[in-house]
């Protein structure tokens, strides 16, 4: 491929799509939808190409692009992917593509909706392919505003109003990012003092030896910032309300990939640049992770609204990712990255199904439903697939992620891991109960008018469901890739031993 800027192309095709959509007249509803679908499809194909052509034997950053951007800050427009970012890039595009189809029924202000959605997808992708800290942060915050506008314009008000949900989500994430930004600037200034020249290149920054006290300080700020995005307890409160208020596509992208930026940042920036800080703070993160798994899981048991169930369950599952990251060994981090991918496709599928059902029935209350499998067998399939992978059934990609995390984490935190494994039981209880009440049992005649999935509505089920099964049956396709990325990252930072704070 040589100098072909495949990553830039993947990144900016949706932006070009958004610009064309903004120019198109409002009446051209079909062309707007097709344009959105085509631009996400191109990005998806390009990222699949990246996935296939990535050379695992050489590992490291590939498809690298670098253009000097701001000289006095040492910023380069630098992109590249390795084994950690490719699965997440792929995930973003899988979900982005499905999200367009999941929003096929949007009827009002289509122009704004799809333009903002495409900008959002670019923002998320950008964080995964940037290898420059400044560019990373640029994309990191870009996503917040389109989400706010999408939530207030297209969201739904049930338990909380959509205005409240949108603002809560935005302010939570921005305050988290304020801490992160202080940490990043402090890191940048510190590195400049050591290097003698400004640099924002993540790899250059990682090659330096920072004093341990500084690392602890900077890493804790990042843990706050990324932790908020990953909905780490006690900074998770935005997540269920935000998902409940958001339109389907935003819930899919938010729960599916946006949260993963937090985990990705903790690995790529936190652990890679500040290993000593990571080592020191890890036990706290592990402890909070248990809070996620158990506390959020317990809350799930008492929820009645489908979106809240999936919202809290996604908080709970992020606990697995956190404990994987906190264990700081190859296996656990492999598992964490795998889990991020797995949870992404699963949550997106869940939200797509809920969105579809809500659009047709105007309710999300589990108790209102029953026996839906009679009327909507395809929808029921989607729900079952998402639900079973959510509880980590072998054969789904989630099983691979969870199993790997627990194997890795058990080395470092025996007791915490055992508690975390109990999360699987909690998940099984609320998922099976919900699915049972929703899909099975006697046929309820009041839902006879509901139509099953068809046409464009099938796309999310096929794409995301396919990813769940494919990843579950052939895990090595992804696992080897992740392993090459994490392995290289860990060799670069050298051996680390957890300890410190306790």
């Amino acid at each position, binding site marked *: 491929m040589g100098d072909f800027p495949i990553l830039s192309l993947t990144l900016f095709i949706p932006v070009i799509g958004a610009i064309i959509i903004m120019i198109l007249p409002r009446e051209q509803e079909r062309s707007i939808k097709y344009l959105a679908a085509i631009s996400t499809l191109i990005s998806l194909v390009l990222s699949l190409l990246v996935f296939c052509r990535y050379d695992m034997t050489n590992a490291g950053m590939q498809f690298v692009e670098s253009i000097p*951007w*701001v*000289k*006095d*800050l040492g910023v380069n427009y630098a992109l590249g992917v390795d084994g950690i970012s490719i699965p997440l890039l792929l995930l973003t595009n899988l979900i982005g593509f499905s999200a367009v189809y999941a929003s096929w029924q949007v009827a009002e202000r289509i122009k*704004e909706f799809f333009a903002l959605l495409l900008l959002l997808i670019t923002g998320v992708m950008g964080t995964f392919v940037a290898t420059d800290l*400044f560019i990373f*942060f*640029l*994309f990191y*915050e*870009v996503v*917040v*505003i389109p989400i*706010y*506008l999408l939530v*207030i*314009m297209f969201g739904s008000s049930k338990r909380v109003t959509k*205005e409240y949900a949108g*603002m809560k989500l*935005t*302010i939570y994430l*921005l*305050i988290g*990012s*304020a*801490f992160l*930004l*202080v940490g990043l*600037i*402090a890191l*940048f*200034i510190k590195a*400049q003092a050591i290097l003698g020249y400004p640099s924002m290149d993540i790899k250059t920054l990682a090659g330096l030896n920072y004093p341990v006290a500084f690392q602890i300080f900077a890493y804790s700020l990042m843990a706050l910032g990324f932790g908020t995005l990953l909905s780490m307890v006690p900074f998770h409160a935005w997540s269920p309300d935000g998902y409940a208020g958001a339109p389907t596509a935003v819930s899919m992208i938010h729960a599916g990939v946006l949260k993963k930026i937090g985990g990705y940042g903790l690995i790529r920036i936190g652990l890679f640049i500040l290993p000593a800080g990571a080592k020191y703070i890890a036990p706290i993160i592990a402890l909070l992770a248990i809070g996620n798994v158990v506390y959020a899981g317990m809350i799930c048991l008492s929820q009645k609204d489908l979106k809240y169930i999936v919202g809290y369950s996604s908080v709970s599952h992020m606990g697995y990712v956190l404990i994987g990251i906190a264990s700081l060994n190859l296996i656990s981090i492999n598992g964490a990255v795998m889990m991020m991918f797995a949870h992404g496709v699963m949550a997106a599928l869940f939200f797509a199904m809920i969105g579809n059902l809500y659009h047709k029935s105007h309710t999300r209350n589990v108790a209102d439903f029953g026996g839906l499998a009679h009327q909507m067998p395809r929808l029921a399939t989607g729900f079952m697939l998402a639900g079973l992978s959510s509880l980590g059934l072998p054969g789904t990609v989630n099983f691979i992620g969870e199993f790997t995390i627990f194997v890795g984490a058990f080395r470092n935190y025996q007791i915490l891991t055992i508690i975390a494994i109990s999360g699987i039981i909690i998940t099984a209880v609320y998922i099976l109960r919900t699915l049972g009440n929703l899909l099975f049992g006697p046929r309820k005649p009041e839902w006879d008018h509901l139509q099953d999935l068809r046409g464009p509505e099938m796309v999310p089920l096929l794409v995301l469901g396919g990813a769940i099964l494919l990843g579950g049956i052939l895990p090595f396709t992804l696992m080897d890739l992740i392993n090459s990325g994490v392995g290289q990252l860990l060799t670069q930072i050298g051996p680390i031993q957890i300890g410190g704070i306790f």
Partner: protein
Amino acid sequence: MNYGLLTTEILTAVLGLIVLIAGLLLPERGKKAVGFLAVLGLTVILANVILNFGHEAVFFNGVYQIDIYGNFFKVLFLCAALLVFFMASRYTEFFGQRKSEWFSFMIFATLGMMVMASAGDLITLYVGLELMTISFYILSAYLLNDGLSAEAGIKYLIMGALSSAVLLFGMSLIYAASGSTVFTEIYRTLSAAGNIQPVLVAGIVMMIAGLGFKISAVPFHMWTPDIYQGAPTPVTAYLAVASKAAGFAALVRILLVALPLSLFNWSLALAVLAALTIVIGNLIALAQKNVKRLLAYSSIAQAGYILVGLVAANSYGLKGVLFYAMLYVFSNVGAFAVTTMVEVETGSTELEAFNGLGQRAPMLAAVMTVCLLSLAGIPPLAGFAGKFYLFSGAIQAGYLWLAFVGLLMSMISVYYYLIVAKAMYIGISQKEGPILVPLTARLALWVCLAGTLFIGLYPGPLSRITEMAIGLFL
């Protein structure tokens, strides 16, 4: 001395007079030409400054300095004035017979600011400052039939006069301590004396208070909301953007040339002021229901951010001051331009007046959203790059707490900016149908939008220019 380099100031003065006289002489039908003349004149002057950007000269033993730093600010003032003229095209109809004088006063205010940016001496600085301030007294009371506008004029007159008195008293104390009014001379005498006398400290404090009024730093900010709300919206825009920048231009030059940090450490005092300004400006803005008033409090907070750069007083910090002052022109004039359009259309600047703007005029709503988010510091808009410079400087200078305060508050500020966005996108308006935006105003809007996006996405060029401009202090 090459007096040719003073052409900028001379031309501006001549242009102001010509516009004034033309307004008197031309018949009623010819008055339309006055605005055109003012725009054309300012464009020529702007071209002149840009062509002579790199030329430096010192006039009258340091009393007047032509340098890149001063030229940078002159470009800034001229851009701001031009943008305000463009966006005010429909609003000036409210001024009736006195439209041509309005252009003339705006040009004189610009001249005052230019003198402030280039002054190398306390008296010259004061003359420039008064020329600017007196023009603004008149401009802010320009809507004769509007009570709020008259109130704004009187308030600004009383408080402005008071602050000028404080400033002048501070200058006299500095003169007493050093025996000179020229910045470089003051520096020489003071560093020769070695120790700092209490009278000098009193002088510096009073000067910071006097200029703090112009930049509306807390606790000298009390005038801002009332006057910003009452004054005609284009005047408010110019007051917020250019007079603030002029205040900073003067403050930076005095503090760094006449009283460098090595001589007397004023940075902690300024840091406290900056933190107070950021916190109070943002917190009060949260409760505002009128967009002009909201922008007034936001402009107080913005002054706080810019002060952070001055507190740091290192390369990143000072670059940040200039960088932010420039992007502030595009972002803030953009926001005020939309407010002006809405006011012309609905007759109000209350938040409800913005309801449904996203449907009626998508362009206006988009510009407003982008400009406000830039002020909030959301990437990839200009405000983020500016804040990055400012707070990098602060952390480098050891003011980590200030960076915490600033960045946290700037994230909180997103709340009130988004309230405006919310009204525009989901509010329901009483009126229907698109809003007519005249061509000139549309041009101003496009320039503001493009400036905000370009500086944010590619800060390189502006950062190089600011680097040249601050060369004199480092």
